[in-house]
């Protein structure tokens, strides 16, 4: 019942050719992407790829050099942060150190002159929802990292804004707490129904939480897709190697003599898609073996190209051994080495040549 009152209908966000330029450096380069209302979208990429800058431009903390940002169909490119009707959780949490937990959470309501009775009521609801009821009078410095994180969340959700932005909110927590908060934030977003834009450099976080992952590289949009599609059909070698642990194996096509006719393509196969197969198309020598408990990760080499295979522990594998590997045809990815784009039309041809 509490949630019905806190719930807020999300609004869609649209980036239309948005760029951010500082002098000679282009932090974000003509990015166009749509974010659906009520969805959980992760902005993913290595550090320095422009994901935080993109988020800050949506928030209005960074000005847009070119392009437009639309929220709920309205152009808000020139509006101040407070006029964009959104909330934000910062990486450092940005809690006000001199205010108590309660004062921190209701800060925005107080600024907007929400009546005292309503403030108290909402505070109680948020505190119950996040398990903060016992510590409302404490100062942020007296809380643990996880509790501070919850206060920051509380401040973001109390105003029931249609959009919530988060900038690497879990990066200061330890591994166990991070997992708990991941589940909790996801559940909270589903429950309350706002649109979430979530910045992270951790692909596991993005894959497990998001409906849609926007993968960035060097300020450019690499791929925007659901986690499943990103894993199964990466649009570029970068996307292929960024998603999945260990990353996808990429071979220059001439690593296999059978298909050496076309040197300007890259072949990709995930380590978990390879299996031992007597007489299989890939014959490799094992260089080292990592025992992971559930399975084995073997470092192999074929024609001077190193790659990895995930194998069941039932197989006895030792370094120096030669093995033959096979894979399903639809596990093969082909990328154009010049354009860096995916070439699904060539999969059958190359697969057949490899197997012949």
């Amino acid at each position, binding site marked *: 019942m509490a949630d019905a009152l806190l719930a807020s209908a999300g609004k869609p966000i649209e980036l239309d050719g948005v760029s951010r330029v500082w002098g000679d450096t282009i932090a974000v380069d003509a990015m166009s992407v749509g974010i659906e209302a009520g969805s959980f979208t992760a902005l993913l990429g290595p550090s320095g790829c422009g994901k935080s800058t993109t988020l800050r431009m949506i928030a209005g903390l960074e000005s847009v050099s070119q392009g437009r940002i639309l929220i709920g169909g309205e152009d808000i490119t020139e509006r101040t942060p*407070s006029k964009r009707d959104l909330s934000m959780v*910062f990486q450092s949490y940005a809690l006000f150190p001199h205010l108590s937990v309660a004062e921190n959470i209701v800060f*925005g309501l107080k*600024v907007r002159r929400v009546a005292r009775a309503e403030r108290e009521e909402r505070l109680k609801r948020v505190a119950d929802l996040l398990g903060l009821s016992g510590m409302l009078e404490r100062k942020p*410095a007296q809380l643990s990292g996880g509790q501070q994180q919850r206060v920051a969340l509380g*401040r973001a959700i109390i105003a029931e804004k249609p959009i919530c932005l988060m900038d690497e909110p879990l990066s200061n927590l330890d591994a166990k707490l991070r997992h708990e908060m991941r589940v909790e934030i996801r559940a909270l977003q589903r429950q309350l129904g706002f649109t979430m834009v979530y910045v992270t450099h951790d692909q596991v976080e993005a894959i497990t939480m998001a409906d849609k992952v926007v993968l960035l590289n060097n300020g450019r949009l690499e791929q925007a897709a659901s986690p499943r599609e990103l894993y199964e059909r990466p649009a570029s070698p970068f996307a292929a190697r960024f998603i999945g642990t260990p990353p996808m194996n990429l071979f220059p096509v001439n690593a296999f003599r059978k298909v050496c006719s076309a040197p300007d393509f890259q072949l990709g196969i995930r380590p978990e898609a390879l299996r031992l197969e007597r007489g299989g198309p890939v014959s490799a020598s094992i260089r080292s073996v990592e025992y992971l408990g559930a399975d084995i990760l073997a470092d192999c080499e074929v024609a001077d190209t190193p790659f990895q295979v995930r194998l069941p522990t039932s197989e006895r594998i030792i370094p120096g051994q030669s093995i033959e590997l096979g894979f399903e045809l639809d596990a093969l990815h082909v990328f154009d080495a010049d354009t860096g784009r995916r070439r699904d039309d060539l999969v059958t041809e190359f697969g057949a040549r490899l197997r012949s």
Partner: protein
Amino acid sequence: MSAKPSMTSRREWIYGWLLLLPAMVLLFAFTHVPAITTLLNSFFSTPRGRRAAKFVGVENYDRMLSDPVFWKVFWNNVWYAVGTIPVSIALAIAMALWVNDRLAGRSFVRMAYFTPTVLPLIAVANIWLFFYTPGFGLFDQITGYLFGWPSSNYLGNTDTALVAVMVVTVWKEAGFFMIFYLAALQSIPLSLKEAAQIEGAGRWTVFWRITFPLLMPTTLFVSVNAVINSFRLVDHIFILTDGGPDNASKLLLFLIYEVAFRHWETAYAASLTVALLVILSLLAIGQFYFVDRKVHYK
């Protein structure tokens, strides 16, 4: 066997005292001994020629409490503190906020604001003496040109002398305090301001609800210093007004100097000094006691 550890511990003990000695000698010679001597002298009469000082009890203090000049100077000093401290602190914060922003040539502006602090107060007073000069001083030229006011003698008028001295003090102190505020402002994370902005706070709200409370430790430090300075810095009075006219711009320390080294009434000066010390300690203790509870320390 048992003598050995005690030998080494005694040696360490001697080293310890030897290391403390230089600082201690200076402290005692120039601070503690004079302070105690002053306190003792204040209960004796002033020695003159062959007549040695004799114990007079609280006679000097009686004289002080019934001395109209003392009370005049005491209230002067109160008004001087009340007038200069809030204004220079407010100015210091305003200047610090201004030069903390991204603006072209801000290091030049910072330097310009800090310059009055670097200049010797005596030199500063001489410059201001020219500003205040009746007829052709800077102020008279400006007011005469703009509003056609007649020439006025700001330093020679009992109504304006103290205010004129206060203006110089504010001008001198604000830049110094600005440096402390600038350092404090730079230690406040930018994300706090951004978080407040997203929550809908305007510049004014951000300042009063976030920045100012986080500057409180600095404000406490600066205000304690400002209070002490308001009783301690009197160099410019020697140049500007010499305490006049009719004691209108005389401050406590200036009075002490006058009584001690112009009238050579050292015993009475000693009791005035004790009074000054008592006032200063009460103020400092009071400030820490009242303000400290409202200050948030990181």
